[in-house]
């Protein structure tokens, strides 16, 4: 499939202008701008497809809901590398069955990826991820206030 430029830039401009977390949750933006996304149901893609996600926060945590329809838990890998949360998913097996000359492929296969630069106050020890109804649900608890604060005593010469 040939990458086709999507007419989506205007929308992204609006989102970007109003997004105070641009510098944080934003590692993969260029993929949205430049590629038509083959998505989850198309049959072939030879480059990783960006995963769409909603990001929110409350007083205790940041929350990410990433759309990964039709996966199994084992297909999904979540890691934090140098302060960047990396979501990777890959559907390797092709469930293909030939019947009277027609190939039956249940859902598309391919690689999916998204990176989010995390704010400093995320408690990495307590990050939690669950998968249900095609949504990867990640909770990123915030460090307790004051935990990263340290007074430095100023000494005389």
């Amino acid at each position, binding site marked *: 499939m040939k990458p086709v430029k*999507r007419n989506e830039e205007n929308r992204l401009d609006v989102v970007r202008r109003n997004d105070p977390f641009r510098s944080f949750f934003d590692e993969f933006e260029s993929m949205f701008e430049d590629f038509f996304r*083959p998505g989850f*149901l*198309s049959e072939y893609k030879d480059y990783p497809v960006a995963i*769409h996600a909603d990001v*929110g926060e409350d007083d205790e945590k940041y929350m990410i*809901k990433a*759309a990964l329809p039709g*996966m199994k838990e084992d297909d999904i890998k979540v890691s934090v590398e140098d302060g960047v949360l990396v979501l990777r998913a890959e559907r390797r097996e092709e469930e293909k069955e030939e019947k009277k000359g027609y190939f039956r492929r249940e859902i598309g296969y391919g690689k999916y990826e998204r990176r989010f630069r995390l704010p400093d106050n995320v408690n990495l020890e307590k990050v939690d991820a669950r998968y249900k109804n*095609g949504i990867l649900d990640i909770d990123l608890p915030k460090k307790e206030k004051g935990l990263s604060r340290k007074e430095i005593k100023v000494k005389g010469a």
Partner: protein
Amino acid sequence: MTLITLGRCCPPDIQGFETHVRRDADDFVIQAALPGVEKEKIQVTMEERRLHIKAFRDDSFSRGRSLRSELPRGELEKNYSLPENIDAEAVTSSYDNGILTVRLPLKQQPGPRAVPID
């Protein structure tokens, strides 16, 4: 209204969802990516030669504030006009891990039949 088209793959748009249609040996299969939609909030309806898919996706976060919003939410809808040879009575659908699959079996073509000679 989308006429059922082989191999058609619609990318998700701002208030839509990704769908894919294919033809197998004896049925058409429509798949729709509806991640995060509860099964109870999906409606598949056949009306004459039309198929309606309707779904509702709640907001991702019931509390707190949203920092980034990329997933479609609210009313999601897609309509298809079906070819004549679909067996409307035999249409089935299933929902698994965010993917809705609707199977539209083709009417069995009656094969050649020997006509007895009196």
